[in-house]
């Protein structure tokens, strides 16, 4: 269950979701078929039968949504215009949008995995991860995995808003444990090497137990840590290096986080 802050619009007309579901970009967001959804990058746009439309970014607050909603505007307007045409409704789209308001916190559970929930065996993750290296090559695999981690971390830290570096590391450690990414240990390291943090991951989901492959492979974690510190410090001048990894012969994975000039 995720909590999100939303922009709410009201078309003030009942919507026939069955008819609207024929539009190729609208899908039911739930098994009970009570809400249709259009995705526009990170923004999710929900259409309810009572004519309400909510736009939100999963797990994010209103400030983050405001940054993202501009890029979703075209998709939102197109959908509203198509709804008018499909259902033969008459209203002023501009007026509807201008009357949009910040909604109450939306509790949305749209999970369709009622039995399996969020569990996936780590071997599935490993296979997918290694296939990425095999097919796309080291460079692309590294870029994809680090981007995935960075994106998630930025969203996460935006919603948590830690007050201190120690709190940041604690919440990241909790998240890693809950998601099965690994067990994070903060190392009081040599401050000449790492200005911000030396972090060790035990039982890495990506690497623990793997044989020597002459490269560090935990790019999702590396990207996540970078994204977390970038968001916390509000600066892109952050470097995170995976200095030890099962893939390079170690029995744990270690990351040095460093602030750079700029």
């Amino acid at each position, binding site marked *: 269950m995720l909590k999100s802050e939303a922009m709410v619009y009201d078309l003030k007309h009942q919507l026939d979701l069955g008819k609207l579901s024929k539009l190729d970009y609208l899908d039911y967001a739930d098994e009970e078929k009570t809400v249709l959804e259009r995705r526009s990058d990170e923004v999710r746009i929900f259409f309810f039968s009572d004519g309400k439309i909510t736009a939100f970014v999963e797990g994010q607050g209103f400030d983050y949504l405001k940054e993202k909603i501009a890029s979703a505007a075209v998709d939102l307007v197109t959908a509203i215009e198509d709804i008018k045409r499909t259902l033969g409704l008459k209203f002023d789209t501009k007026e509807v949008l201008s009357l949009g308001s910040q909604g109450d916190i939306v509790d949305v559970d749209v999970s369709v995995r009622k039995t399996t929930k969020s569990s996936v065996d780590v071997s599935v993750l490993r296979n997918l991860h290694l296939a990425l290296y095999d097919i796309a090559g080291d*460079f*692309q695999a*590294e*870029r994809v995995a*680090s*981007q995935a981690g*960075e*994106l998630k971390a*930025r969203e996460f830290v935006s919603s948590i808003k830690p007050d201190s570096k120690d709190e940041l590391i604690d919440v990241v450690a909790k998240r890693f444990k809950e998601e099965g990414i690994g067990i994070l240990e903060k190392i009081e390291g040599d401050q000449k090497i790492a200005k911000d943090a030396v972090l060790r991951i035990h039982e890495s989901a990506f690497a623990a137990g793997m044989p020597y492959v002459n490269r560090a492979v935990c790019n999702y974690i590396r*990207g996540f840590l*970078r*994204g977390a510190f*970038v968001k916390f410090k509000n600066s*892109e*001048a952050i*470097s*995170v*290096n995976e200095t030890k990894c099962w893939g390079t012969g170690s029995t744990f994975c270690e990351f040095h986080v*460093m602030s*750079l*000039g*700029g």
Partner: protein
Amino acid sequence: MVKALEKVLTGIEGLDEMLNGGLPRKHNVLVMGGPGSGKTMFGMQYLYNGFIKHGQKGAYLSLEETPERLIQDTGQAFGWNLKELVENQDLFILKMEKFNFQNLMDMMQSTILQQNVKRIVIDPLSLMHMCFKNETEFRVGLFNMLEFLGQQDVTTLLIAERSFSERGGIEFGLEEFITDGVIVLYNFTRKNERIRALEILKMRGTDHSKNIYPFHITPEGIVLLQEELL
């Protein structure tokens, strides 16, 4: 019907006319020149104009100079409010961790994908060699980086140091052949005077001026003197 190539205006007076409307969008363009030819200023002006005149965010990825030094040398010299743009995250001026290509790619990727920059400057490309163990690894890294940039909605200037003083004395490296365009900045000596000049050696996908034009560095930045030919 062939779709016209979209262009990105540099905002450098005289250059967009030479380029027949600006740099082709999403191109990687090498800007090369010797010491004092104005390469860094050229790159920063491209980014500064990009935001001030066209609302496009930019990122200056330095392999050598510190952000503070770049802001001082270019911004303060021309009255550009670079510090304010950096504070507002409309412009990113970042220095790569020494010899760390992965860090360069991380910063490039995040400024493009998370911060929505549309213009990138990498300065100087020549130092990228130091990130790799050998020439082969450098070439692979360069290809990968250019391929990555080519897939993004950014138009990139890659600054390269080249030692030459006259037009005939250019020795071309790999970078000149694999980038989409090459702009050369000269620093000639004529009658005991230094003259700076610019030539577009190559620009894929668009017609461009084949002339060499002198340019001045004015209080507003680089200005080409199109009424003079060299």
